[in-house]
C-alpha cells in the first residue's frame, strides 16, 4: 500500500473526519451532494485499496441497481405512474428516490471501507484506552491471541501427525471431523490453561494495583490542530446552509430539488472541500515529493 498521509494524522482527527463525512453523507439527500460524496469517497477508497478497490467499487454497481429498482416496490407514493402490477403503482418519483437511497448506501460502504483502512485497531485503542482501560486491554489481548492460537493449532496438527494420529487426504470425513474436534479441544485447553499463567504473571507484575497509564505514539501536531480547525469551519458552513434549506431535496410525492446556484454554491464548495481533505493531503504529498526530488 502506498503511504497515506491522512492516516499519519492523529487518530482523533481521522475519527472526526469520518464522523462528519458519514453523518452528512447519510443526511444530505440532494443528488449533487450525493454525487460529491460518492466521488470523494470513491477517489479516497481507490487510493487506499488500489486495484482491488476498483474491483470492489465495480461490485457495488449491481447492488446499486437492485436497491434502486426495489424502492418503488415498497414505496408507492409519487405522482407519475410508470406502470401497475397487482394493482400497485410503480412510480417514477419512487424510482428516482431509489437512486438517492442506493447512492447513500454506496456512499456508506465506501466511507466505512476507508474508515476500516485508516482507523486500525491500535489507533482505536489509542483513542479509547483511557476511557475504557479494561475493554481496550481486552481488545489488544484478542488481537495478540488470534495469530498465537492459529500458530499453536498448526503445531498441534504437526505433533499429532508425527505420532501417527494425523489425517491423510483420503481419510473419511468422520475421521477428519473427529481429528479436527480433538485439535480444537486441545487448543482450547491449552489456551485456557495458558491464560491462567498469563494472568498470574500479570498479577505478580502488579496489574490492578494502581491506575494504568498508557503510551501512544500519536501527538497532536500543528497540522492536526489546523486541520481540526478547518474541518470545524467547513462543517459549520455546511450546517449553516443545510439549516437554511440550501441543500433540500424532496422526492415524494413530487420532486422538489433546490438548485445549486448563487449563494448556495458556497455550501457545496465547503462540503466538497471537507470530503476531499484526505485526497488533497495525499496530492500535496506527491507534489512535495516530486519537487524535493527534482532539487537533487
Amino acid at each position, binding site marked *: 500500500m502506498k503511504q497515506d498521509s491522512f492516516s499519519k494524522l492523529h487518530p482523533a482527527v481521522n475519527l472526526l473526519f469520518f464522523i462528519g463525512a458519514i*453523518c452528512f453523507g447519510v443526511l444530505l439527500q440532494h443528488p449533487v451532494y450525493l454525487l460529491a460524496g460518492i466521488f470523494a469517497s470513491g477517489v479516497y477508497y481507490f487510493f487506499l485499496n488500489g486495484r482491488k478497490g476498483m474491483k470492489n467499487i465495480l461490485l457495488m454497481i449491481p447492488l446499486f441497481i437492485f436497491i434502486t429498482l426495489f424502492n418503488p416496490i415498497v414505496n408507492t407514493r409519487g405522482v407519475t405512474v410508470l406502470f401497475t402490477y397487482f394493482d400497485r403503482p410503480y412510480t417514477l418519483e419512487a424510482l428516482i428516490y431509489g437512486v438517492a437511497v442506493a447512492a447513500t448506501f454506496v456512499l456508506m*460502504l465506501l466511507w466505512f471501507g476507508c474508515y476500516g483502512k485508516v482507523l486500525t485497531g491500535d489507533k482505536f485503542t489509542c483513542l479509547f484506552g483511557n476511557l475504557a482501560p479494561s475493554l481496550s486491554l*481486552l481488545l489488544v489481548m484478542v488481537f495478540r491471541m488470534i495469530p498465537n492460537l492459529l500458530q499453536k493449532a498448526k503445531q498441534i496438527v504437526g505433533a499429532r501427525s508425527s505420532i501417527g494420529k494425523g489425517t491423510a487426504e483420503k481419510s473419511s470425513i468422520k475421521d477428519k471431523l473427529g481429528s479436527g474436534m480433538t485439535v480444537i479441544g486441545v487448543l482450547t485447553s491449552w489456551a485456557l490453561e495458558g491464560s491462567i499463567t498469563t494472568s498470574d504473571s500479570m498479577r505478580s507484575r502488579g496489574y490492578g494495583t494502581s491506575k494504568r497509564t498508557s503510551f501512544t505514539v500519536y501527538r497532536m501536531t500543528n497540522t492536526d490542530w489546523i486541520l481540526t480547525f478547518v474541518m470545524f469551519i467547513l462543517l459549520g458552513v455546511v450546517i449553516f446552509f443545510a439549516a437554511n434549506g440550501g441543500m433540500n431535496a424532496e422526492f415524494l410525492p413530487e420532486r422538489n430539488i433546490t438548485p445549486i446556484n448563487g449563494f448556495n454554491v458556497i455550501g457545496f464548495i465547503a462540503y466538497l472541500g471537507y470530503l476531499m481533505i484526505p485526497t488533497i493531503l495525499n496530492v500535496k504529498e506527491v507534489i512535495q515529493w516530486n519537487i524535493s526530488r527534482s532539487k537533487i
Partner: protein
Amino acid sequence: MKKSNVAMLIVFLALIPLTLFLGDKLPGKGYYITGVLIIIELAVPFFMMFEKRKPQARELVVLAVMIALAVIGRVAIPIPHFKAAFAIIMLTGIAFGPEAGFIVGAITAFASNFFYGQGAYMPWQMMAYGAGGMLAGFVFIKNKIPKKPWIMAIFGFLAVVIWIGPLLDTSHIFIMMPEISFATITASLASGFPVNVSQGLCTALMMIVFGKPLLEKLDRVKQKYGMLEDENGI
C-alpha cells in the same frame, strides 16, 4: 442506588426518548444516525458496569481467549453464513453468566470486523452478538435448565433464528431501506430468514459436538482457579 443503575435509568428515561425526538427531525436517512446513537446509548451502561467492576487479570485473559476463539470460529470457517462464533459466544454466556456473554459477544463482533472490514452494520452486530451471549447467560442461569447438549442445541437454533438473526436483520432496515415501514421491515426480516436458519443449524451442530467438552473445560478452569465467582478472591 448504584451508580450504574442510575446511568441505566438516565439512559432509558431521558437519553433514548430525547434521541428519538431529535432524530425524527433529521432529514434524509437520519434514522440511521438515530439507530446508531440508540445502540451506543444502550451499550454504554453495560460497558460502564464492566469497567467500574475493575475486572481482574484472570477474568480478562479468559474472556480474551473466548473472544479470540469466537473470532477464529467466524473468520477461519470458509463456508459463508455457517460460522461457529455464535455457539462459542453462547457457551461463554452459559458458563460465565450474562455479563461475560454480552462482553464476549460485543467484542467478538468488533474484533472480527478488523478482519472482515468495518461496515455500517457494525453497531447492530455488536448489539446482536452481545444480546445473544447475554440471553444464553440468562436462560441457563443457576443450572435451572440442564446443560445437556441437545437442549443447548435447540436453544442455540431458536436463539439465532428468532433473536440474534432478526436483531442483525434490523440493520438492513436502517442501512438499505428507504424508510421504516411495515413493508420494509417484513422484507428485511424475510430476506434474512434463510441465512438465520443456516447460522442456527451451524450453532446447533456446534452445540452438540463441541458444547459439552467446552463447558467441561471452562468449568474445570473455573473450579481449579475459582474464577468469576467471588468478587474479592481473584
